């Protein structure tokens, strides 16, 4: 079972925080196919958030094929994230390491890099939703 938590200072939308936490649990293996996600009521009772936010997060996960809702029973994990995805991650991580080294040589400090990174993230995700 997964227990959600919220980071108010992250600036990340609440439903996305829930999505990320489920994905992380899938990567780490704490959630496996067949496991049941907590009901909206349970999440709401723990976090005092809008139930629609939980439903929105679950819909997003469903859309990605990670979970599936069974009417009257709950929401269950369909598949885990691993294998190829983790290998992808390793490759991406190598690219990012190289980028950070390049930036450092160019004289950027930690904050400069974080600013650039978050700007790139914002632009990228806006293209997604647009």
């Amino acid at each position, binding site marked *: 079972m997964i227990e959600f938590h919220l980071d*108010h200072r992250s600036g990340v939308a609440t439903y996305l925080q829930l999505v990320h936490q489920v994905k992380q649990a899938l990567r780490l293996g704490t959630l496996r196919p067949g496991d049941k996600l907590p009901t909206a*009521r349970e999440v*709401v009772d723990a*976090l*005092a958030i*809008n*139930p*629609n936010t939980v439903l929105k997060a679950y819909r997003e996960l469903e859309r990605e094929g990670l979970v599936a809702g069974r009417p009257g029973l709950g929401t269950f994990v369909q598949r885990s994230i691993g294998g190829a995805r983790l290998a992808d991650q390793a490759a991406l991580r190598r690219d990012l390491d190289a980028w950070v080294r390049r930036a450092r040589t160019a004289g950027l400090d930690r904050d400069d890099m974080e600013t650039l990174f*978050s700007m790139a993230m*914002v632009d990228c995700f806006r293209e997604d939703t647009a």
Partner: protein
Amino acid sequence: MSVALRTTGLGVRYRRADALRDCSLAVPAGRIAALVGPNGAGKTTLLHVAVGLLTPTSGEVSVPGRVAFMAQDKPLYDTFTVAEMLAFGRRLNRVWDQEYATARLTGLGIPLDRRTARLSGGQQAQVALTVALARRPDLLVLDEPLANLDPLARHDVMRSLMVEVAEQPLTVLISSHVVADLRDTCDWLIVLGGGRVQVSGDVDDLLAEHLALTGPAELVDTPPAGTRVVEASRTGRQARLLVRGAPVLDPRWSARPVDLEELVMAYLRSPQASALPALAAVRA
């Protein structure tokens, strides 16, 4: 999309001053809507009109379903016991779920035989909320429900309210002058400033539509094409804009997303700005 509350051209006049001017808004069913604005913006007046306590000077209000109201300061009869408050609700309402009310209060550990004056602030809020919820309303209107509560009680009240919403079809309209209180709970935002509705819309849509821009000071008067400036300010050689609209392409501007508080503040500081859906869209 069915609507739980709609106001059209609502106006309320007290003696000489307008408390509300031309307020048109709609709250879709199933939403948790936040009504925010500074003190004196007309929030309470708008809520009182919505629940029928106040007759508007002009315009119309329509609430298709049953509405229940929890007024500011959560009034209860202080000589009544909790059980008598429930008897009050039972005898004054056509629809009343006594079993639910008793179970809810017992579940919260509130003794039914205690006088309401001897309950803590959080418990009083829960009793007032139970009296409203046991009427099985379609629309629940709460006027500053978290004011005068300690942080723990605020969390508990909000949490139990969210559980109610998860368990039954319920639209909630909550007023507050503290935006942070409503950040995680509301998915619809109404900003009221100076008696006018400035913003009314889905929270996620609003956050996605707005950007905070930072750029060189000389650009403050020439905002990027395709955007509408909500608020502009300059400090030294830097210009800051909060805009609504399409992505910014000009490389001299750097953009970041806004949070709910920034968005509300920007509108409240610019009384002329507004972000309202076209009426046709709201009616759809």
